[in-house]
Every structure is written in C-alpha cells, then in structure tokens.
C-alpha cells in the first residue's frame, strides 16, 4: 500500500451559517492525477480553498505528507510544497507576465532556484516567454491560464491543486491544458484536479471522486466512474 500524499478526513466547511461540506473524505496518492467532479455548487472550490488554507474548515483533518495542516497558514502550505492554481486564474492583472511568475516563487523554499524554474516554465510554455513583458490583465483567457499554471510551478510544488483550469476556454485550449496535466504527471508531479469537463478529466484520472452537495457520492478509478450509470446520466449526457 502506498501512503497517500494528501488525505482528507471528515472535512466540513461553511460560509457563515451555511454549511457546504459535510464529511468529505478522500486521498491523493503520490504521482497520481486525482479528479474531483461534481455539478456547480457541489463544493469543489470550497475543498480546494480548504486545502490551500483560504477557507478554514469547521471540522475534520487535512494531512499532507504526514503532517496535519488543517489550520496551517496558507503561505506555510505553499512553502511545504502544496500549491493552488485557483478557479478564475487570479493572475496579478497590473503586473507583467514575468513579474507574475517571479511572485510565484516568493515562498522561501522556492526562492533559491527561481531562475532555473523560470527557464523551465518558459520552456514548457513558450508563449509566456514571448509575452514576458506584457501586462497579465491584457492576456487572453487561455494565456492567463498558462500563466496561472506557470506561476504555480514557480513555487516548486509537489502537489498541484487545479481548480477548473479549463473554465471558459476554447476547445483547442482545453485540449492543451489536459496535455499539460499529463506532462506534469509524467514529470513526477502529483495533481488534484477539479473539473466540469467530466469525460476528459475522468479518462485522465488515476482516481476520481464524484461530489454531490458537499459529500462524496462515488469513489473509484477514473474508468470506474466513467462507467457508472450515475455519472453517465448526470455528467456525460448518456
């Protein structure tokens, strides 16, 4: 049995009086792509934010590489190797592409090797190098998504949390994002992916969880979820 890189147990979270996560349990194995699928409002982003330390859980536990990080500050989590590529990308619009990337390496653990990492990000996304002096806010949605990804990589994470990286992108770009995810897995990164594009996301996934109303409704390999009648009906329109 492999030890999970991330394990989430009995996680609950609320916005004010409204509870949105009820007893969420799941694991992410090292080197895998784990996918969370679920309808709008199922709680995917809330899980991602809880993992990144942007939402504080009301109960439950988060363990990353053996350490409990349930109440750790967000910057310490980044420094520990856990990095969120947030929904809506959240680039720094008034800064250039290069400044955005450099900010990605602001965590102490990432500072030392940031020039090599910048070169690697530019190699992975040549488009970002062409646009290195452009204001991030003026880039297209697809370019901003690459930038958000590149910025995340600058932190030298071991676990990358990607919240709907294909949201609002054209099909060509969607394809490219999924290719990038495969490349990252091949390069040894561990990935937790929240997606609406259920079909591709499940085809890619080593393990997958279906969320419904803040609970895990179904868990299995990507293929198992693809075959389940529930998923086929609700998410694949079959």
């Amino acid at each position, binding site marked *: 049995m492999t030890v999970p890189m991330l394990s989430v147990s009995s996680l609950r979270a609320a*916005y*004010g009086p409204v509870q949105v996560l009820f007893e969420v349990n799941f694991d992410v194995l090292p080197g895998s792509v784990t996918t969370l699928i679920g309808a709008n409002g199922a709680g995917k982003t809330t899980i991602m934010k809880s993992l*990144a*330390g*942007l*939402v504080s859980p009301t109960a439950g536990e988060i363990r990353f590489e053996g350490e409990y990080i349930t109440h750790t*500050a*967000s*910057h310490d989590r*980044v*420094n520990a190797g856990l*990095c*969120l590529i*947030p929904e809506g990308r*959240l*680039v*720094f*619009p*008034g*800064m250039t592409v290069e*400044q955005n990337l*450099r*900010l*990605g390496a*602001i*965590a102490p653990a*990432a*500072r030392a090797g940031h020039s090599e990492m910048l070169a690697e990000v530019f190699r992975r996304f040549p488009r970002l190098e062409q646009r290195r002096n452009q204001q991030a806010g003026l880039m297209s949605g697809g370019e901003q998504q690459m930038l958000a990804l590149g*910025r995340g990589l600058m*932190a030298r994470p071991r676990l990358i949390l990607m919240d709907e990286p294909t949201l609002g992108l054209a099909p060509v770009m969607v394809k490219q994002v999924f290719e990038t995810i495969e490349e990252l897995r091949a390069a040894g990164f561990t990935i937790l992916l929240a997606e609406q594009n259920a079909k591709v996301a499940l085809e890619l996934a080593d393990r997958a969880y279906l969320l419904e109303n803040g609970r895990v409704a179904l868990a299995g390999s990507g293929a198992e979820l693809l075959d389940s009648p529930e998923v086929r009906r609700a998410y694949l329109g079959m």
Partner: protein
Amino acid sequence: MDTLMSGQLLFAALVSGSLYALVALGLNLVYGTLRLLNIAHGDLVMIGAYTAFWMISLFAIPPIISLVLAAALCALLGWAVYAGLFRRMLAKPELAKRVEANSLILFYGISVILQNLAALAFTSTSRGYQYLDTVITWQGISMTGNRLLSLGVATAVCFGALLFLRFHLFGWGLRAVIQRREAAQVVGVNLNRVQLLTICGGFAVAGVAGVLVSMTEQITPFMGFPFTIVAFVVIIIGGLGNIGAGILAGFCLGLVETYGIALTSPGYRSILIYGLFVGVLLVRPEGIFTKAVRS
C-alpha cells in the same frame, strides 16, 4: 508674471507637495493592503509633531533624531491597532467584507480619542519651536534650512518607499496584496506579516511627516484633520491603493495649490484643493494616474 517664473515659488510648491505626498503615502499603504479607511491618519501627524516639540523643549533633542522616535512611536501605535482591533476582523471573511465601512467608524473614534488625549495632556495652546530657521539664499531663492530639510526627508522617504516596493521581495509581496489579496495568499505571501508591517510603516510615515510639519507650523491637538483631508484628496486623485501615482499626485496638489494661490489669493486655497478633487472625481473617478503609473 515674474513671481510665477521664480524659483522661489517652485521651491514652496515642492516643499508642500513633498509633504502631501508623504502624508498620503502612509494612508495609501494602509488602505491599499488592509482596506482600512484611516480617518485618524492626520492625528498621527499631530503625534509626530508633539513628539518633536517635547523632545526639543524638554531634552534638547533635535527634530532630526525625533524623526526616528516619532516613527517608532507611531509604528508601535500601528501594531497596537492591528493586533488589538483588526487582526481578527481581517482573518474572518464575513467580518473582512465589512471592515472598510467599520474601519471608518473605528478610526473616527480613535481620532477623537487621540485629539482629546492630546488636548488633556498638552492643553490646546498652540506650540512651536525654532530649528534651522536662518534664511539661506541660493541662486536668488531664499529658503530656510528647515524647509530644505523637510523637502529632502519627505522626498527621500517617498522615493525610498517606491524603490522598496519595486526591488525588495517584501515590497513585491505588498504590491501583490494590494492588487489581489487572495492571489497573494495563493502564491504564498505571508498576509498577516505584510498587513502588520504595512500598518506599522504607514503610521510611521505619518509620524515622520508630523516632525517635518512641526518645524515650520504651529502644533495643536487639532492640527491633524486638515492633513487627513489632504491625504484623502491626494490618494483619490492618484487612485486608491496606487502608491506611485499617489506620490505623484501629492506633488501635483502642492504645485496646483501654490501656483493657484499665487495667481489668485490665499483665500482660494480650499477652493483649489477641493476643486481639483471634485474635478478629478467627475472626469476620472478611478484617479488620473491609474493607467500611466503602476505602483
């Protein structure tokens, strides 16, 4: 027309402009990173001014040294306000949403308390002292040493702040927080530390401004309010949270005020300042320099 072209007038404009830029810098930093509307900002100027006055009157400590003391004292106040009032409010998203409106009321209270404490402790008699007030003439411009010092210190602090924001890693983190708070957390900026140090720094800058003001103006417990107003005017002209533009706007306000008064009369001072303010709000509510200069 001769007076308009004189270096004398330009010097006066730069002295007041640099001071406006400095006072506004502190307010802008605190607003930009914490979204706190510090209506007590001018009262920190007052505290700085009294620090300089008492230090020189009681201990013969010159304002040059009081700059450091006032900065430290105001930074300490900033720490107390952050740790005591705002840390918890900013940590809870539900409270953080209302913090901007709440801060206005809280700081109003702080302002009243500070003014009354100062009035109780020091009476409302206006105070003043003499320091470097001999007139030096250079290239036909007559200036006093204290004004020259004020211009030098205010300009140096403003440019120092800009360089710090541009080149120091902490400055990058601070700009990230100003631009997109949540994204700053995502990349791993220590939000709590940035907020704490910014409020300390912003308050300290106001204290420094107070020492500079005290060298040339009367000191009273109620001297702060006009500085609060000027600071708000400046940062709204420059664009809220836009540090570089705020500094530029401070100098502009000094120029408009000084040359405006020279062209009209001192009675027009308020009309000029508020006229510029209302004019900017009507034409470019996002601030005149928001596109041109990025902090």
